[in-house]
């Protein structure tokens, strides 16, 4: 069955440190992959997406992610974390089937804390 796993429920890093958030997926076809960020009290904002081509994709706010087919992973990275990056991060895979069904499969999220 298709699924998305974010193994880390909560991560805390120090400001200025590097960050890697993990995302593993199980999907029967070539996936479309997304990372979203949710600040407290806000909706989800798209950080970046992978459809095809270069497996290292750049996103907004200085984030990047690397698609590794052999590991079924799409990990999110940032070289230097800022206090404003404290938020919830969600990985998603899709679409689940085609046609009119454009549903995404969502991970449960990773909460990021940033120490000053």
């Amino acid at each position, binding site marked *: 069955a298709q699924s998305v796993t974010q193994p880390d429920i909560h991560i805390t890093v120090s400001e200025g440190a590097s960050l890697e958030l993990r995302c593993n997926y199980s999907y029967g076809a070539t996936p479309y992959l997304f990372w979203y960020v949710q600040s407290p*009290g*806000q909706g989800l904002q798209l950080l970046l997406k992978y459809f095809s081509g270069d497996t290292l994709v750049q996103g907004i706010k200085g984030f990047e992610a690397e698609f590794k087919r052999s590991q079924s992973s799409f990990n999110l990275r940032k070289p230097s974390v800022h206090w404003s990056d404290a938020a919830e991060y969600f990985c998603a895979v899709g679409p689940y089937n085609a046609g009119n*069904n454009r549903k995404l499969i969502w991970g449960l999220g990773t909460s990021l804390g940033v120490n000053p």
Partner: protein
Amino acid sequence: DAGITQSPRHKVTETGTPVTLRCHQTENHRYMYWYRQDPGHGLRLIHYSYGVKDTDKGEVSDGYSVSRSKTEDFLLTLESATSSQTSVYFCAISESKGTNQPQHFGDGTRLSIL
């Protein structure tokens, strides 16, 4: 940012009352979605729409109904609210071109049912 407006932003109501949440978009996107977000469960799809009057169920549709009479509006109705429906509700939209379009989210409605 995508033009998505959810209303109301906050609502407190009593068990057994009907509740309607509205999602309004100005992007003319074909696809619209209703999710609920609960601690430990992430985002769960309630219903989605792939066009005017075209809707389908998601994974947690029991107790919810939807309607889409215009491209820009997608309504979520709780016919008789229960405490288990206390949650944060998000609307999302996506374009129709290609199957790889991301979803864009509104700011959510926090619903409390007492």
